[in-house]
C-alpha cells in the first residue's frame, strides 16, 4: 500500500538526529573544506560525527554505521542540510568508494579501509579523470606494470577533488596494454605521499584549492590495493560512477535546504525586487520537492527490486539544472550585490550565493557531463540507436 508518511520509527530517527545535530553542529560555519586549513577543521567534525554514529548511518554497525534504512538515510540528509552542517569532505570516499568496497572488496580491505576512511583518519580522493580522458573515461592511458608483490603505477590523473589534502586516491590503470578502451583496466587504491607521486593543487573557479593533479611515476602499490579482479576495473568502476550519478551524491536534503534559504532571501527583498522573481522562487521550491518525491519513489523501487539504472541519468540532469536556476534566482534577487564574494561585509549570507552559483555550474559538468547523461538516457532508457 502506498504510504507517504514516515513510520513512527522513521520519525523517531528524525527526532534523534535532529537533536544531536542541533546540539553538536558548530555554531560558526567552518572555513571551506576545499582549503587546506578548512579541510583539517572539517576532518575534526567528521570524527565527531563518526564517533556519535552519524557518519554513515546506513552502514553495518561493525563499520561504525547504524544500519539505517535508505529512507532513514534520506531523513538524516534532510536534517543535516537543514541545520547547515559542514559539507562532507569525506564524501568521495564514503559515497563513491565505499559502495564499491562493500560490493567488490575483500573482508581484509573492508576492515582496513572503511572505518578509518569514514572517521576521517584516512582520507581518500577520487582520481578518475586524466588530462585527455574526461567524459571519455575509457580512453585513459595511465598504466600499472607487474612487479614483485605488486604493481608500478605511471601516468597523470587530474580533477582529483581535495586530492591535495588526501592520503590516498582510487582510480583505474591499464594493466593489460594489449587491450583497448574498457578492457584490461584495473581498479587501484594508491598513496598520495612518498616516492613516485607528485601532487599539484589547482585552484577552482570559486577560488578554493579544490582540485589536484597527480603525477605518478613507478609508484609502488601492493596487490592488496586492488579492488575486485585484475583487468576487471571497468566493471568495478561502473558500480561507483552509477552511485555518483544516482542516489548517493545528491540527496534531496541539500536542495530543500537551498530552497528554504532562497525563500528567506526573497522574504528579505520581496518588496523591492523584480516581481517576476516570485515565480522563480516558487519553481525552485517545487523543484526541490519534486526531486524529493522522485527520490523516495526511486528508493521504494530499489527496495522492491526494481532496477534503477540509466534513469539516474535523467536524475542528474534534473538536479544539476535545478541547482543552477535556483542560484540564478538568488543572484537576481540580490541586484548589484550579487557580485559580492565571501569576505565582503555587505554580502548577504556571507557571499554564499555567488559561491554556490559557481559550484552549481559545475553540476552539469562533473560526474559525466549532462550531454553524456542525455545520450545515456536516450540510448538506454528510450532505446534509441547509438549515433
Amino acid at each position, binding site marked *: *500500500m*502506498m*504510504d*507517504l*508518511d*514516515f*513510520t513512527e520509527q*522513521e520519525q523517531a530517527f528524525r527526532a534523534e538526529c535532529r537533536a544531536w545535530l542541533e546540539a553538536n553542529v558548530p555554531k560558526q560555519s567552518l572555513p571551506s573544506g576545499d582549503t587546506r586549513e578548512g579541510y583539517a577543521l572539517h576532518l575534526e567534525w567528521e570524527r565527531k560525527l563518526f564517533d556519535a554514529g552519524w557518519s554513515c548511518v546506513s552502514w553495518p554497525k561493525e563499520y561504525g554505521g547504524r544500519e539505517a534504512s535508505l*529512507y532513514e538515510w534520506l531523513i538524516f540528509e534532510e536534517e543535516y542540510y537543514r541545520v547547515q552542517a559542514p559539507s562532507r569532505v569525506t564524501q568521495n570516499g564514503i559515497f563513491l568508494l565505499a559502495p564499491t568496497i562493500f560490493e567488490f572488496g575483500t573482508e581484509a580491505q573492508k576492515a582496513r579501509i572503511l572505518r578509518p576512511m569514514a572517521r576521517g583518519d584516512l582520507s581518500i580522493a577520487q582520481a578518475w579523470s586524466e588530462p585527455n580522458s574526461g567524459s571519455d573515461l575509457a580512453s585513459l592511458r595511465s598504466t600499472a606494470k607487474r612487479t614483485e608483490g605488486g604493481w608500478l603505477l605511471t601516468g597523470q590523473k587530474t580533477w582529483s577533488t581535495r586530492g591535495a589534502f588526501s592520503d590516498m586516491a582510487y582510480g583505474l590503470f591499464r594493466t593489460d596494454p594489449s587491450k583497448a578502451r574498457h578492457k584490461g583496466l584495473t581498479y587501484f587504491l594508491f598513496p598520495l605521499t612518498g616516492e613516485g607521486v607528485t601532487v599539484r593543487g589547482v585552484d577552482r573557479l570559486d577560488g578554493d584549492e579544490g582540485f589536484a593533479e597527480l603525477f605518478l611515476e613507478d609508484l609502488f602499490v601492493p596487490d592488496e590495493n586492488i579492488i575486485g579482479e585484475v583487468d576487471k576495473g571497468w566493471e568495478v568502476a561502473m558500480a561507483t560512477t552509477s552511485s555518483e550519478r544516482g542516489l548517493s551524491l545528491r540527496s534531496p536534503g541539500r536542495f530543500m535546504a537551498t530552497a528554504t534559504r532562497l*525563500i528567506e532571501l*526573497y*522574504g528579505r527583498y*520581496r518588496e523591492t525586487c523584480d516581481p517576476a522573481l*516570485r*515565480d522563480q*522562487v*516558487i*519553481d525552485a*521550491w*517545487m523543484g526541490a*520537492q*519534486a*526531486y524529493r*518525491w*522522485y527520490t*523516495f*519513489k526511486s*528508493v*521504494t*523501487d530499489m527496495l*522492491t527490486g526494481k532496477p534503477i539504472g540509466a*534513469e539516474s*541519468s*535523467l536524475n542528474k*540532469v*534534473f538536479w544539476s539544472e535545478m541547482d543552477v536556476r535556483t542560484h540564478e534566482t538568488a543572484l537576481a534577487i540580490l541586484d548589484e550585490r550579487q557580485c559580492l564574494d565571501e569576505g565582503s561585509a555587505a554580502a548577504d549570507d556571507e557571499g554564499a550565493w555567488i559561491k554556490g552559483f559557481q559550484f552549481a555550474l559545475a553540476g552539469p559538468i562533473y560526474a559525466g557531463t549532462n*550531454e553524456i*547523461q*542525455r*545520450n545515456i*538516457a*536516450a*540510448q538506454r*532508457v*528510450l*532505446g*534509441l*540507436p*547509438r*549515433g
Partner: protein
Amino acid sequence: MHFAFSEDQTLLRDTVRDVLAKECAPEVVRRVWTGSNEERVPVWGTLAENGFVGMAASEAAGGMSMSEVDLALVLEEAGYAALPGPIVESALAGLPLLEQLSAGTPHAAWVERVVSGEATLGLYFERQSLALHAPLADLLLVVRGDALYAVPRAEAGLVAQTAVDRATSVATLDYKPSPAHLVARGAAAQVAIQLAYERAALGNACVMVGLARRMLDLAVAYAKDREQFGKPIGAQQAVQHHLANAAGRIAFAQPVVYRAAWALANRDRAGGESRREAELAVSMAKIYAEEAARFVAKVALQVHGAIGYTIECDLHFFMKRVWTLAPFYGTAAVHRARIGAHIL
C-alpha cells in the same frame, strides 16, 4: 514511507490499458473527430460495465469507494488513449460530489445513471470562462458561490464552441440559478465543492501525464524508424537530447502527480496541516503535468517534422487534447499563485 502502487492498483491499470488499447485506438478517436454526437463518448459503455466510471462512488450506489490513488493510474491511461469525453468529471471529480450533496434530494437519481454509464457529468466552477465537455455532458454540476446546482444540459444556457481538439466539446454557459436545480448550499457544500476542484485538477494532471507518455512513445518510435542522412534520425544527438529531455519531464511529473493523489486521499489524517499539504501537492501536480505535456508535445512534433504537422498523423490528437484540456481547473499560473500564497 512506501512510494509504490499496490498490485491491485497496477492490475486495475493494466485492465483499463488493455480495454482502451482495443476499443480506443487512434482510429476510434479519429471517428470522433468527424462523427455525430452519439459517437462522441466511445468505449463509455465498456468502461462503465467494468466499473471504471463508478470507481469513486459508494458501494451502495454501485461503485467501489475507491480513492484518488486508485483512480490516478486509470485516468493516466485515459490520457494515454486520448479517451474522449468527461472521464475526469464523471469518474473522479463530479460523481462523489453529486453523491455526497444530493443524498435525500431528487437529484440523487443521477448518481446511478452516471455509475451505469447512462449519463455523463460536466463540472463548471465559478470564474471558469468555458464549460468543458458541456454540450455533451448530460448533467452539469454548476457552482455558484457556496451552492451547487445540478442542471440538465438543455437548461444550462449552453452555446457550443469549437475547440482545437474536435474530440472535446466546449461551450459557454449562461445559467440563471434556479431553485429546482439546487443540490446543496452552505459551509458543508463549500467544503465538498473545494474537494471536487482539487480532484478535477488532479484528474486533469493524470490525463496530462498519460498524454505526455503517449506522445513520447510516438516520437521515440518515429525516431527509430525514420531515416535521414543514411541513419535513423534517433541516432542524431540533437534528437536524442530532445527526447531525453521529454522523458525527464515525464519522469519527474509522475511522482509529483502520484504524491498529490495520495495526499488528497489522505487529506484528513492530520487536520488542517494535511489539507494544506494536499492543496500544495495538487497545485504542484497540475503545474508539473501541464508543463510536461506542453513540452513533450513540442518535442514530439519537432521530432516528427512535417509528417507530424498533418492530421493524417495520429500525433495531433494528443497534442490538441493537451492544448484544450491543460488550462482547465486552474492554469499553471493560478496554481503557482496558490503555492506562493502558502509558502512565501
